[in-house]
């Protein structure tokens, strides 16, 4: 299908890092089944480095591809580097997404941040709360 770039189709049909993780150091879940997409990201963190990442996604092709790409982009990075991951970077790495699918990349960014926040919370590490926007007001689900 020409709807997506080859990169998106590659990450959709051969997603990297699919699965769950026991004893994860951070778990983030964002989205809503009602809206048609949920992403759950698991992080293994050693000495401030993300040594392993896994994800589970319920959603469309671009949601699965965005999750796969985001996990690839933060694997092996420091926690601080992972915090800088933006949805724009995910879109660029995927060679673009159709306009109405951009929210899938936003969800991927939010899932990574949610997992990092969970890691901070679990380990009582202080952090700047402004870096983690509250998802309750998240526009794409607010209509339901």
């Amino acid at each position, binding site marked *: *299908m020409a709807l997506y770039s080859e990169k998106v189709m590659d990450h959709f049909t051969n997603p990297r890092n699919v699965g769950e993780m026991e004893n994860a150091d951070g778990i983030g879940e964002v989205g809503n089944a*009602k809206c048609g997409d949920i*992403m759950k990201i698991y992080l293994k963190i050693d000495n401030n480095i993300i040594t392993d990442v896994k994800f589970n996604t319920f*959603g469309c092709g671009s949601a699965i591809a965005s999750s796969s790409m985001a996990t690839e982009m933060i694997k092996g990075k420091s926690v601080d580097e992972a915090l800088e991951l933006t949805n724009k970077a995910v879109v660029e790495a995927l060679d673009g997404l159709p306009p109405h699918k951009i929210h899938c990349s936003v969800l991927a960014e939010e899932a990574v941040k949610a997992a990092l926040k969970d890691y901070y919370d679990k380990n009582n590490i202080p952090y700047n709360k402004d870096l983690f926007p509250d998802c309750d007001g998240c526009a794409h689900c607010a209509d339901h």
Partner: protein
Amino acid sequence: MQIYADNAGTTKMSRTAIDAMLPYMETYYGNPSSLHTVGQEAAEALQQARGEMAAILGCEPREIIFTSGGSEADNQAIFSAAAIGEKKGKKHIISTAFEHHAVLHTLKRLEKQGFEITLLDVHENGLVTAEQVRDAIREDTCLVTIMYVNNEIGTIQPIREIGAVCREKGVLFHTDAVQAVGHIPVNVKDDNVDMLSLSGHKFRGPKGIGALYVRKGIVLTNLIEGGAQERGKRAGTENIPAIMGMVAALKESVDNMAANTKKVQALRDKLIAGLSQIPHCALNGDATHRHPGNVNFCFEGIEGESLLLLLDAKGIYASSGSACTSGSLDPSHVLLAIGRVHDVAHGSLRLSLNEENTEEEVDYMLEEIPKVVDYLRNMSPVWKDLINGKRQFIL
């Protein structure tokens, strides 16, 4: 293997239809409004085609208006009935919640113009009843418009009974029969229909052509002005090749309807029985009052677009009512209308078969679809929550 299972979306044209069109591009290319021989040859062909369609639908040739397709026919029928009603001060229209958007959006526009619209509940089985229509008709009702066969879930409405109620109450009755004509027996007289829309490409004719049956005596409102074509009710030089192709395809479909129905229905039932084996799924729409080629399921825990993409990679061409395939945030209004909640409606799959499909293809689909559903469920956090008891199964 490549399997086209989206025949409710559109069909591959039949050889008969293509062959019927070619002479009207190469040899008889005249404009039927021209007085010369080439023009009159086209005029004769047009007259003959109109006669053949009329004979099939059970009406007079002059009661058929050729249009650009089903959507135009729906628009013209509804706007015309609204104009007739408005003159009499009747501004109430009855329809259903799961009509095609060609009907629903037209009704929306009328609502903005002061009409009151009642959308009947279609129940969990996707069927309305004549009694519901009877109860909804008011003094100021000017039109009842209810689709013959639902395009997504294939349910066949009791059109004849609804038509009888409308006749009794003196209310105009229109039906969008785009998914019915050429597939199941349709006769406008027997069915008590005042107006009926049909589309060529749903029964293996060409795209961009359709027709509106309008009972004589009902005055149509023009959507397109500019000429005397179609009794002055639809301007524009007639698309003769498309009309010839559509009528040839219709004739072929109707001539072979009994055999096609038997074959397609058997394939449908095998597919439904096989897919029903997948845990936590449900057939959408009544199993009995159903289009012979329609299969529509919801699979819990997965999303339809990813399902379609993976099936596409396996050569299976289908459709879904998920939000991601509609380009909006909401899943199909049809699935919501039959009571499927959002979470489940996102995971729908429609396979629409016709006589071109084979049992070998059904076997292949029954082998591949469960694998793809399983694969997607295995990466779905929703599915994980369902099997771990953190979330309640709906299906």
